[in-house]
């Protein structure tokens, strides 16, 4: 096991016991939504949950997966594959309206050089769809 992976595992375990992350509550929501939607669809099993996560949102897929494995136990969601679709950050320049992916930490507009921007995409966190049986 590489040091980086090992550290990540230790970090996740520590985070779990100290409840230091906000992914726990978020993962609870994911499980609850999945259970409700599967119930509505009269499904027996949830095979995959397709999540959309913005690059700027402060949620870590690995961490959600970690909590998901324990929170989904003994439910029809247990064992479901969490598929994360990452949405790259897109900013809109307030001066010239150009939409762009930030190239530098200052979020400067590549067209006019302006530094007045609003977030167009990248803060998403939602369940897009599910595959059920």
């Amino acid at each position, binding site marked *: 096991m590489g040091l980086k992976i090992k550290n990540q595992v230790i970090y996740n375990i520590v985070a779990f016991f100290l409840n230091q992350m906000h992914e726990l509550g978020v993962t609870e929501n994911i499980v609850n939504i999945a259970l409700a939607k599967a119930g509505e669809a009269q499904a027996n099993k949830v095979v995959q949950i397709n999540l959309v996560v913005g690059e700027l949102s*402060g949620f870590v897929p690995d961490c959600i997966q970690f909590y998901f494995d324990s929170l989904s136990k003994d439910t029809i969601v247990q064992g479901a594959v969490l598929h994360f679709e990452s949405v790259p950050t897109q900013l809109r320049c307030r001066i010239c309206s150009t939409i762009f992916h930030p190239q530098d930490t200052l979020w400067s507009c590549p067209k006019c050089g302006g530094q007045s921007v609003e977030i167009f995409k990248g803060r998403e966190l*939602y369940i897009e769809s599910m595959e*059920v049986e």
Partner: protein
Amino acid sequence: MKKIEVIQNVLEANETIASRNRQLLDKHKVFAINIMSAPGAGKTSLILQTLTGLKGRLNIAVIEGDVASTVDAEKVQSEAKAVVQINTLNMPESCSLMAAMIESALKDMPLDNIDLLLIENVGNLICPSEFTLGEHKRVVISSLPEGDDKPIKYPLIFIDADAVIINKMDLLPHVDFDIAAFRRSIEGLNPKAAVFQLSCKTSEGIEKWCSWISKQVETNATKR
């Protein structure tokens, strides 16, 4: 196997409770401010200064959010109308206050006797930006020793702020903090935010900040 469309915001559960909190606050004519910053930037000091500055003008209650301890609640309790301490250590989330924590804290508050509720969030520039509490205004404090690059490193929390405070102005001669660069970053990310430069140590700039709060409370009251 079949695919079902969901399209449901995962944070909706928090947002639903937040809007319930907002309704309850509005019903009792309580104006709520969510105060966020990194640890040590001066959230408690700002609350203490605000309590003093608005004494006799507004009845103020405080919700203190910390991972552990009642240190902050003890500091503010003599001046505040009511104080509730939330310790997040044993909660599902400890890195930020959540709407559900505020909902339960509001049950212990004499809401009819309160005009202004100051909510001190957990010291953190990342997580609180994801969770609304039902507040009317969001305020972020940056202090000079932290450096002027915080809006660049943690843009989300500054983008959603209604006011940004630059605290510890008394330290300006001793630290390399470029006020103009910081203000330019805020202007770029969030041109609507009010920016205040103050020192909770010397009280410089506090009056201006307190006037802003009074005005917000008044404006909100006339809107209802």
